[in-house]
């Protein structure tokens, strides 16, 4: 167990193709010792949840910059519940107006990372929330 790496699915739902953030985060989490699966672009909520199930991840990071979060995130959360995957930590990163944050958290999103968040803060957040998967704490 102590050797198990934290498994993270970085997903890019919606039509937007701006993937700099998703890719940088995927690489940063990997460099921090996590096992990262990047879905690629234009994934539907169904594809994301199915990938999360197959890959047995503990964390899903959704990157959304287009403003479609209010349509996409509730569907992902619903599908997770339907598949008894409530224990998966869901993070949202991207351009999310402050006024939408409470609603997303009510849906069950653990944290929203807005523009300017340091990669290290995201790494630390995941480590603090994902128990039992001890991994290589800070080298």
């Amino acid at each position, binding site marked *: 167990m102590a050797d198990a790496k934290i498994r993270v699915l*970085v997903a890019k739902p919606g039509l937007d193709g701006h993937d700099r953030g998703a890719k940088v985060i995927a690489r940063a989490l990997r460099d921090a010792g996590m096992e990262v699966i990047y879905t690629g672009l234009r994934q539907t909520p169904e594809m994301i949840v199915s990938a999360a199930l197959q890959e047995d991840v503990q964390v899903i990071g959704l990157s959304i910059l*287009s403003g479609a979060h209010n349509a996409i995130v509730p569907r992902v959360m619903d599908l997770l519940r339907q598949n008894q995957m409530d224990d998966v930590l869901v993070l949202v990163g991207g351009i999310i107006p402050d006024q939408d944050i409470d609603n997303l958290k009510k849906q069950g999103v653990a944290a929203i990372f807005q*523009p300017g968040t340091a990669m290290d803060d995201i790494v630390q957040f995941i480590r603090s929330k994902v128990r039992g998967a001890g991994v290589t704490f800070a080298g």
Partner: protein
Amino acid sequence: MAEKKLGKQEVADNPIADIFEKRCPSAAEKKWAEETLAPTLEKNPERPIGAPTGVNLDEQGRARFTTISGVPIRRLYTPADLPEDWSEEKYLGYPGRPPFTRGIHATGYRGKLFTMRQFSGFASPEETNRRYKYLLEHGGGGLSVAFDLPTLMGYDSDHPASEGEVGKCGVAIDSLEDMEILFNGIDLEKTTVSMTINSPASVLWAMYLVVAEKQGADWKQISGTIQNDILKEYIAQKEYIYPPAPSMRLVIDTFEFGSKFTPRFNTISISGYHIREAGSTALQELAFTLYDGIEYVEWARKRGLEVDEFGPRLSFFFNAHNDFFEEIAKYRAARKIWARVMKERFGAQSQRTWLMRFHTQTAGVSLPAQQPMNNIARVALQALAAVLGGTQSLHCDSYDEALALPTEEAARIALRTQQIIAYESGVTQTVDPLGGSYFLENLTLQMESGAFDYFGKLDSMGGMVKAIERGYPQKEIAEASYQYQRAAEAKEKIVVGVNEFAIEEEPPQILYIDETVARQQAAKLKALRARRSNDEVKRGLDALKKAASREPQSDGNSAISPANTMPYIIDAVRAYATVGEICDALRQVYGGYTETSIT
């Protein structure tokens, strides 16, 4: 003059040895280094900007200075930093003459200012039409249309994939009806319009041409630009629909159609902007963009088009990022390289073909959400670099770029920033005012040779489409992007208000777009499908599919290739076929495309 160049060990032992690295300083410079520089360095060693780690230290542990792209910067530039055969005639020339280092117009901005073209579009065509009229009333010189993601991806507003995306990142356009509303009351023969549309570019352009025609405008007189640069979509922005080869064919169809019917319309804006936004260096932006240009010319020539016929309608679009001199060098090098490529590689005879005309937009990626008002200063500096680099048109980003689409106030300040540069700063009064700066000329030459190095690599891969298929530019950009992010987080690069000088602050006012637009657009589509002749739409789409499945070839005379898709798309548009229907017809012929993701 000729001092011998030093090796690494000698550099390490001698604090002023760097002035002999890869250059031969004059006796006077050497004397200055010994008598003035050396004692100063001893008393006050140089300190890097940012944390003294990583990219900010050289092998000897001394402060290292670089551009934002990581290019090393010397302490002082002198004639020793110019090539041995340097002459103003050879390397700079005169504006409006090769090698075009100093610009494409003999009078610079004296005869014609840069066009202030603010990119804008949100929510419904009705609301965007109001914003356009506002911008034109406030002194904006041209329009630039931002479409929403469903439009960019060729889906109608009522398609399931469009859920949550309608009107969010730009204006929602589904049919000719929406385009008529968008330009209602705007004279298309007098206003130049740029449209940021790529994979479905021919469809939106066809709609534009039909609206212009209905207004009574002459196609030979209208001018504007469609972005239509599919290569950078595969490289960076990722808004593609079809695989690369058929996508390129659609682009060449527009070149061929445009050169015959709309001689003043730019049928492409070959774009480095998005490549840079994806995290590339300045050099990568320059090299990949110009090589994309080479690839389009190669494909057009394969079609049988003459370079001097379509070449003058190729335009470019660059980013204006934070590093002031590096950006100016990039624009100056771009002009030189393009003229050289068109002349030497493609044998273009006409000077109009050699001229690189470009639009510039300030770097959205450089504008953080923290202390957003600081972005007004960033944008002003970036825009100034673009003007000193000789841009033909300019968009200034709004300070709230990282938060949402701009509010009306933010959009106005962005336009005013352009006006302050144009009318108050004085920089537009003389041509290429920085020409002859040792530093700038050195950077310009480095950019130029760096770009040709990349061209060599891309040539050896068999061209850009091949390079994209093996993920080469994507990998280069992802690596640069990560390196920058790492340096910023280690504070090796200072981002004011983000990793230094941060404060607690209140959230700002932003433009919030809800789902009303999606419902309105869906209702309009339903009414349209009930009202129009669906038989006529079907006939138009069937004819388009037939043309799209044939191989177009120009016979070199005045007619366009019989299989050119443009006339068929125009017919479908006239029958009020929607963006989604036309793109679906082409999807049936060409299929879709999924990239192999690289992280």
